[in-house]
């Protein structure tokens, strides 16, 4: 009973956080960001069903998101004109069903192999669908997209969803349900065999499972949840365009999942949160946030291949051994110079961008015409870089000793 209680505790906490967020941050901006996060979380988790759990790299996942979204918007229009009439709380399910149907169709011929062939097919399909959406104007609305109004549905316990925060609570419930079911999927035979097929498709066949069928099931499930995210998108923005189907959106979800960490269930959630924050908050401070995103992504792939979740999990051994505290000082000693280096670097990039004009950087006035400012940044950057490099060995040492195998530690680890 005890492990069950422990596990449930995590889920209760999750639900609590989801429902409690608007109480802590109730500005309109915050609610908008939360809504975006909710959509991104479901989308990224659905993507990881393919990549992290199934080993299938897709460059066209936005297809299911977008198709779900388009169907959802059209359903809203139909509700408005009373062709159909039901509460909009079911709209994400409509999106999910369309995503599922699309995945069944496309998955029937694209799941024969994983690897490069799969990636290329997904790329081709993604481009095909995105391009077709510009041709079939009556359904996809051409370049202008399709829009609708979500307030025409029957009220749900008096709520007519005029306000964003009402949509947020609906989204929170859907996020919780979707996360729960996607997690439970990983605990089923289909989910486990997906992992097995990812690790070793040949061996999986020799224990009686068709690798292709296993992949197909994961593919359909992932399309279903992506469609739910699309439906939620439609409810939130009441508007959808070709952009939500295309390679840019597909790329974005890949980024989210990867930065968060593919190998952990919670990874995409972290990635979705980080990316949404960068997208909405950072873009208010600098026009170059996409550039920083690109830099961060490349650095993550190079140095943190297991993502942020992986980085956190790396500390598990030290935590179990109770040696986590011993890492705090070494991290500070190397981390502060690293942070300074990054800050100085960003300052210089911003100065390059704002050529000839003065601007504010973290509250300090900077002027790219002022040579002194350049010198200051360059000096800080150089010293910070050297400092970081010099102190790296001590961090490595501390890391090794925190992770060292010792008899007592092994016992504690086992229990």
């Amino acid at each position, binding site marked *: 009973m005890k492990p069950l209680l422990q596990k449930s505790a995590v889920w209760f906490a999750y639900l609590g956080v989801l429902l409690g967020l608007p109480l802590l941050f109730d500005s309109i901006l915050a609610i908008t960001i939360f809504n975006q996060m909710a959509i991104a979380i479901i989308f990224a988790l659905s993507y990881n069903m393919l990549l992290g759990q199934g080993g299938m790299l897709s460059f066209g996942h936005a297809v299911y998101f977008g198709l779900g979204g388009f169907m959802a918007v059209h359903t809203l229009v139909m509700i408005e004109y009373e062709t159909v009439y039901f509460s909009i709380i079911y709209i994400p399910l409509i999106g999910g069903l369309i995503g599922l149907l699309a995945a069944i169709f496309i998955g029937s011929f694209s799941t024969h192999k994983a690897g490069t062939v799969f990636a290329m097919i997904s790329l081709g399909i993604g481009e095909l669908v995105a391009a077709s959406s510009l041709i079939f104007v009556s359904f996809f609305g051409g370049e202008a997209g399709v829009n609708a109004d979500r307030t025409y549905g029957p009220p749900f316990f008096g709520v007519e969803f005029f306000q964003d925060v009402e949509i947020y609570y609906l989204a929170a419930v859907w996020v919780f349900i979707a996360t729960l079911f996607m997690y*439970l999927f990983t605990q*089923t035979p289909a989910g486990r*065999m997906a992992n*097995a097929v990812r690790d070793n498709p040949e*061996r*999986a*066949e020799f*224990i*009686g499972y068709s690798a292709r069928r296993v992949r197909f*099931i994961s593919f359909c499930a992932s399309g279903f949840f992506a469609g739910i995210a699309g439906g939620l998108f439609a409810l939130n923005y009441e508007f959808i365009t070709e952009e939500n189907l295309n390679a840019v959106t597909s790329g974005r979800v890949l980024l989210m999942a990867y930065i968060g960490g593919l190998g952990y269930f919670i990874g995409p959630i972290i990635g979705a949160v980080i990316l949404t924050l960068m997208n909405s908050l950072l873009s208010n401070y600098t026009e170059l946030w996409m550039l920083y995103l690109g830099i961060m992504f490349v650095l993550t792939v190079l140095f943190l291949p297991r993502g942020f979740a992986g980085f956190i999990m790396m500390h598990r051994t030290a935590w179990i051994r109770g040696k986590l505290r011993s890492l705090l000082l070494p991290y500070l000693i190397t981390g502060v110079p690293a942070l300074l280096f990054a800050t100085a670097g960003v300052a210089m990039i911003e100065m390059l961008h704002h050529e000839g004009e003065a601007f504010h950087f973290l509250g300090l006035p900077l002027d790219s015409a002022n040579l002194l400012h350049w010198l200051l940044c360059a000096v800080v950057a150089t010293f910070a870089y050297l400092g970081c490099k010099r102190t790296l060995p001590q961090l490595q040492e501390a890391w090794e000793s925190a992770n060292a195998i010792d008899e007592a530690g092994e016992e504690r680890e086992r229990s």
Partner: protein
Amino acid sequence: MSMLSLQNVSKQFGETRIIRDVSLDITPGERHAIIGPNGAGKSTLFHLISGKYQPTSGKILFRNEEIQGKTPFAIARLGLARSFQVTNIFPRLSVFENIRCGLLWKEGFGYSFWHLLGRQGELNAKARELLVEIGLADRADYPAGELAYAQQRALELGIAIASGADLIMLDEPVAGMSHSEAESAVALIRKITEGKTLIMVEHDMNIVFDVADRISVLVYGEIIASDTPTAIRANPKVQEAYLGEVPTASTDSISDEKPEDIDGA
């Protein structure tokens, strides 16, 4: 009824004939070893039986049912399991999960996405039992990829057994093991394949003569002899294949030699 029957099986890749007209019958419960020099085609034979390759000609019957041309997973479901020369496990899953996955199909779970594995008491108990049998119970939660080599081989064996197959095919099960490790492995193989049919490819003659009821010798894709261990030992064709020539001295001195001296390449 024979458990496994190969009838005039041939396999060629392009112009090269790897398996030439092989016929073999394995009786249920038999322990059969396949030996032969490197490159003779032993692994290819396994691949043909387990469905990875399709024979160019000939038939393969498993319990009187034709299986040539069937997919590996269809053949596995019929009750045929195999292990691999190069360790072939699921490295990122835990040891326990590896075994449990091996059990899934036999226990009837199929492609279910509605059964929660944590709740399947019977399944999990079986998996734990099997883990104890192969001696990996204390490593249950380790990622399989982090096990020592010999333990990975034991896990490999466990996965093959888990499927509840009646015909187990082992491809060089003790390759790369030290002498003591190999001894434990053979004991495990013996114990675990009680009552089942076993086909084993092996180079170590000690093990072969110790375990096998019958031995087939594969040379250049052909079976040159298929008989009891004693008869094989005395067979001049076999001696020629291994020693390069038939000894001209009396055959007594050859059959008196200890098995270690007739060692495969």
